[in-house]
């Protein structure tokens, strides 16, 4: 079974950068206008998922 990881639905994401601003580990970046997860930095704390106004982020 694959380990959990943070995934981005780019259709649902509007690149508002709220997740980038709340991530305590700098695991999310907009480069320059598409959201990317730096999986090595992400500890699956869920704060970005909670903050996101849409359902673009999920831990699966």
């Amino acid at each position, binding site marked *: 079974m694959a380990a959990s990881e943070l995934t981005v639905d780019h259709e649902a994401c*509007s690149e*508002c950068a*709220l997740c980038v*601003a709340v*991530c305590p580990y700098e695991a999310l970046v907009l480069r*320059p206008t598409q959201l990317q997860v730096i999986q090595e930095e992400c500890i699956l704390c869920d704060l970005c998922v909670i903050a996101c*106004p*849409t359902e673009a982020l999920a831990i699966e």
Partner: protein
Amino acid sequence: MIPDRQFDIVVVGAGPAGGLAALTAARAGLRTLVVEKHATIGEPLCCAEAISCCGLTDNIPLDRNWIAADIERCYLRSPGGSEIDFHHPDAGYVLSRRRFEQGMADMAASHGAEIMTETEAVGLTGGENGRFTGLRLLNGGSEFNVSSEVIIAADGIESLIARWAGLDTTLSIDHVDSAAQYLFGDVPDLDPTCLEFYFGASLAPGGYAWVFPKGNGTANVGIAVAPVVANGRKAIHALADFVKWRFGSITPKPLKRSVGGIPEFCGRRYMLRGNVMVTGDAARLLDSVTGAGIANALWSGRLAAEAAIAYLQEGRGDLARLKEYPKRWMDERGREMRFFLWIRNILLKMTDADFDDVVGFLGTAYGNRTITAIDPIHVLKQGLRHRPSLLRLARHLIW
């Protein structure tokens, strides 16, 4: 080897803060560069676009081309149907931020500022003794450096420049609102001069819903919720429920959707580090109750540029000269911003009955009169005199 291009001021971000900072600097004759990572200034929109008249005209002379709607009325409604209507002939505007920001960029360029779109800042250079020497930029796949005496960060909620300068602008989940908005066309039952605000612990937990007209029957219709009290409810779902409730069977036509985050005010701590000046949303300078940020962005962009102009014209020796920026901003806006932060702590915990009480009280205290300004301190005194039971809300400040 070609030396790096040299500027007096590099502004990162061409939003309201960056645009006015660049215009102010260019007008004073400084060699000014603006870098904007998006292809089009003013897009994408992440804002409800409302501003008070003085919030705009205290900072820049009005250009009617920027105005989508003239506002003369504010309507507040509580969950139980208590209402209040404020009327004032010059209450504010709903802007076209795209025309506004493009207008300011054009004006800055006409005074000699260089504007580079599709150009992203990817790092600061230097940093010894708090003095950064410039920026590393990325355009069309190539990286290059520019040097600058002063750097003005206006890069919005991401606030990367401030982080690179050593200011940890990471937002706590307890201190943000999460928001979603539609631009609707053919909006039924719309007063084109009225900003509508809707409160409720379940309708908009920790925040409020809004209908802001933009002319020609269109409106920004949105909602902000505070994740700390929203119990997992997403802004887009709260918005769908609000739209259904507000417009019923006549669903307006969605033209555009936008979402975004609204940070709480964080005091002056993110405004300055060495020769890096941080403005607008990047410095977390937003109204903690209304989420309003455009006027604060304009104030901060202008004051930062003015401090930078004085510093550069007086010999560039003493970086402490740049402290005029946070000092002047706090003198102008600090008291009100701190007060709203205090009020937000109450707002987060109010029940539907509390909203009914407060809006009902404001209705009787102010009625349907023409008012020139709402002084929050005056409102508080009125509340204590006429509805002392409202004092119970103060317990939310304690726990």
